[in-house]
């Protein structure tokens, strides 16, 4: 539910006025959240937990309150389960093979598993290569999160727990961005347009504009669309680079000595030092390549394409084709014309 701006502070409570209802929600209205590590981790954990517990339960019951957000959040389930299954597909059966076959199969299997991990890591981390420079260069934080308060239909007559929190991003929809959340709270002494002012300044549209929000909104939209494209394309290319990196031979040494038993200090330390060594050697191997021809340069090409996608992505996002312009209301409705509504 999108609350009107002018009464965003009014708490609309559909809950029964039950004093014994001790459940207190973290937010009682849609709230802009800081885009920092702690908040993002908290949001991530919250969504992850819900994706594996509350949302599937609601979905399987066919709850009337199940919604698109929950469906999308549940997308994490196949992503993670699929990763684990993919690892299993390449490793689980190996233990039944005889020694030689097992060794050979495990070599590929372990690299494949490492590839799955690096795919995920590279895919998520590489998005920062777009969002951070875009924020630094334009002032637009395309990842700004906010908490959304949802009022659900009661499941039964005594159901008083009808609110839930969803975590969205201000710009997750380019058609309906949550502009309202970006306005300052004048009662707290904030300037109404202070966020828009900052962006306008960053974008070189000038300072102390009368209506910076109207000026920058079209620009923000464009930035959001372009950065979205850059994020999508580049993250998959980086993910591919991650897999290719995982397939370098030097990793074998680490994979054969890998241990996560940190309480066994000696083994763990050794494993970590081998990890470091394997990482460096694999990186060199990946870049320098082996063999001749395309095979020799495949690593450079893939890495180059990934890097290029990020650089071009940021450049395209930052370079705005449109000149800032204010929509002239007089052009929208021609006063001389007849308008008929039926």
């Amino acid at each position, binding site marked *: 539910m999108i609350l009107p701006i002018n009464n965003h502070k009014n708490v609309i409570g559909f809950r029964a006025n039950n004093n014994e209802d001790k459940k207190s929600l973290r937010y009682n209205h849609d709230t802009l959240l800081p885009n920092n590590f702690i908040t993002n981790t908290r949001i991530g954990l919250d969504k992850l937990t819900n994706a594996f517990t509350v*949302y*599937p339960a609601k*979905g*399987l*019951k*066919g709850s*009337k309150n*199940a*919604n*698109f957000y929950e*469906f999308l959040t*549940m*997308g994490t*389930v*196949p*992503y*993670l*389960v*699929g*990763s*684990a*299954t*993919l690892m299993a597909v390449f490793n*689980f*059966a190996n233990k*039944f*093979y*005889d020694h030689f*076959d097992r060794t050979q199969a495990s070599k590929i299997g372990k690299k494949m598993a490492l590839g799955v991990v690096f795919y995920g890591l590279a895919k998520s981390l590489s998005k920062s290569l777009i969002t951070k420079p875009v924020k630094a260069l334009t002032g637009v934080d395309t990842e700004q999160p906010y908490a959304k308060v949802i009022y659900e239909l009661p499941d039964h007559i005594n159901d008083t727990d009808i609110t839930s929190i969803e975590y969205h991003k201000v710009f997750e*929809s*380019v*058609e309906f961005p949550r502009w309202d959340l970006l306005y300052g709270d004048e009662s707290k002494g904030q300037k109404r347009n202070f966020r828009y002012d900052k962006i306008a300044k960053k974008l070189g549209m000038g300072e102390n504009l009368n209506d910076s929000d109207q000026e920058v909104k079209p620009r923000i*939209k*464009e*930035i959001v*669309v*372009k950065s*979205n*494209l850059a994020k*999508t*394309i580049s*993250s*998959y*290319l980086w*993910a*591919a680079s991650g*897999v*290719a990196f995982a*397939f370098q031979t030097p990793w074998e040494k680490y994979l054969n000595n890998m241990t996560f038993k940190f309480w066994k200090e000696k083994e763990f330390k050794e494993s970590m030092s081998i990890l470091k060594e394997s990482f460096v050697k694999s990186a060199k191997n990946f870049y320098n390549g082996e063999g001749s021809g*395309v*095979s020799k340069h*495949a690593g450079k090409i*893939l890495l180059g394409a990934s890097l290029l996608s990020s650089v071009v992505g940021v450049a*395209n996002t930052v370079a705005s*084709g449109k000149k800032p312009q204010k929509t002239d209301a007089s052009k929208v409705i021609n006063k001389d014309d*007849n*308008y*008929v*509504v*039926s």
Partner: protein
Amino acid sequence: MNSNLIQNFITYQSTSANRLNQQKKQEAPKKPKPDFDIQKELNNRTFIKPLDGKGQLIKGSIFNSPAALVKNGIYNAKALKHAIQGNANDHELGKLNDLGLMLGGLGIAGYLFTKRQTPMTKGMEFVGLASFLASMAIWPKIAIQLPAYLIHGVNVHKQYEDSFGRKKPFYQDPQFLPWDLYSDEEIQKIGDRLGVDKNIPNRREFIQEKMKKIATQNNTLWMLTAGFAAPIMSGIICNLSEPYLNKFLDNRQNKEADKILSNIDSYAKKYQTNFITNNLNEVITKHKDQPVTKELEESISEIFTKYMDPLTARNFRADLREKIYGQNTYNVKVENIKEIHENLLKMFKKVRAFDEEFIQAIIPNENQIIELLNSNEQLNKDIDASKFRDITIAIKKLVEKNAVEYNKNNPDKQQDIELVRKLIVKNKADKNSSSIKVILSKAKSNIFDSKAITKLQKLAKIFDDFNAKNQALDEYALKKVGAAPETVIANYWNDVAKTLLKSLGFTSSELEKVHSDTTLISPLLRKKVDNIVANKESFNKLMTTMAKKIAEINDKLKTSDISTPLMTGDYNNTAYDDIVDGLFDSVAKELRNGDLGFERTAKGLVGVDGNDVIGTLKNLQKIYVKDRLLGVKSSFYRIINTLDMFRRISTDVNNQPALQGKYTEVKEELIELCKTITLEGHSSDYATKFYMLRNAHPNTTKAPVEVKNGKVVYHYLNKNIERTDIPGDKYFYQDAMRLMYEGDMHPDTMAILNETNIKQEVLNYRNTVLEKLGGEDYFAKPRHLIRAKNQTGSDVKFLLTGISPLELLHKTGKQVYNTNKWLKIFGGAGAALLGLTVFVQFFLGKMKSPQQKGK
């Protein structure tokens, strides 16, 4: 991109057609309805209403039609364009994810493609990607959409096109469902299928709720199962498609190889890099008309010998030295004298016994040395290395004379003259030595002149052409018979091995038990073969299958192209031999002829006159192919011979010539030995003339061997008595060889072989084994020969024995077991997942109808 209803409205109004329509309406207003109350209408604000939607449900089957795929592709391309321009909408941005996923997938597959060595593994990278993407798309269709439709009559992945032509899943957001797109009739029909009571109030709403519930539940089920399903399905698809891809690539590779042989000259252009010519020209530009230094010689040798084997390279270097650079000459110059002087000082200063004064007194200065060499006519003149000694001696004499003089003048400071002599003639030729010879040898005066250059350029052309053709021939040999995965012969090998395993009737559960060890497979294999050969029908079936499969080799590798004379009996040149002969002989001729005279290299390539039997590069090129073929054919003809021998024993044991006149106990020993050796023997078993624990004092009964239901019944062999090897019994060895390889084959076998093109080869194989292995001498068991002593090399004996059927089945059995095990685990998991997903659907969509609620 549309923002809101008002904007839509304005846009709508601006379209001319509607404008006209409106104008018409304005011009001729309809007569108001009699009960029209403007105030009421205004109060109800019904005059502001959304435009009629233009959305529609998408009809069609569960799987997308090609036309729809093209349409989607175009939409995605437009979405990308809009996103680049920065004006894409949410729906378009959503589509970019698919594009990114595909791009990333291609990146991975493309990279791994370059890392894989064989066409099959390369191809599987893309099969893997395609199967993964397909699995992600197919799973929701077959496990969710189809069962839900069949069970409930509801298409839970129904799509609709909104007013702006954007395709969306109908049930994407359960909170916003465009129910108006469904007509009342359609909903009621679905309701009937869902078994909704016809007489309930608000039936349509109830049906809608039920449909929504089923869709929500199914979408959740999809999310919960897809993670397991996609990788497993993808793995299974890859596993199942592998043999087909293999067959396709095998055919393609074989055809490609055939093309190489028939167009060797044009194909060789692929390898015509002119590596030697290009690199040589660089060296020429740098060193033309300069002295021939050791470094120059080294760099030229390196260029030429890069693709040579060490032996040819050694020959070539020797020829190069002799024929191109000729004898070395040296020209000692004043700079060299300076160096000699400095080094002498350095050398003497290292000796503690000599003080500075003594050294200065005895070492001649530069001018003295120059004068000395001048007087001997050794300065600024071309000399050969034999003159080095004269120069050293002359200098030595001068120093010696100075030293003697010094000792004479300084009686209190006598120095060791002998040590002085030794130091001067010190003759170590290493770089760090400061001997006079080392410095002199640097003063080379041969010139890298145009004569040498012309010869080198000619050589470069010869070897560039030779290397290109040779590489083309290597590629042909590798593709056909290379000792590598996925060559024509390797694919054929796997095919035969798998056919044998299948035809012998090894089941999955048997493989599970015995795959780990040959000692476990051995009794099982023996039992299976004994059972099969006991029955004419089963024997014929097995022999026909195997003979036909084995005979495929002569279609894949035509005997006119490459062959193994030991099997075919035809020692004429094949097409491959002709090309190899042509290439090597012509190169050798060019190397020998004219002013080149590279005799050593030519001899290494083709021998003295081109017909040398062994030890030439040409023969190596030919023999590699023949040997590979011999090993493979022997292994498989051995299978035919083994089955045949088992059949002969099963049906006609007492008429076998090798067993005539023997004691029954010895016959039983022979039968047992031959069965074991044919199934399990290695070349070492033949070389040691078969080791067998036997009864040293056999029972002297000469009764026929008992055969019951086609199986030999042992009467003596099972007795628990002490047994030993009898190394002196050469006849036992000879009889065993005869039983295995001599005499007629079984008529059943012959009838089957008559239908194939390998009959003669199998017969030749038996004779060759008898001759080459039977004629092998062995010091520990003398005179164990079936023919006169044979001088065949151990390589041929090894190749003739081939792999034992037991070992072949062990290796193949392991592979098949591994694949089956994987399929069993993940195929089982996949099937269980599918079953569970479908099963769960029977419990979805349960709702109480309004009447039930009221009750």
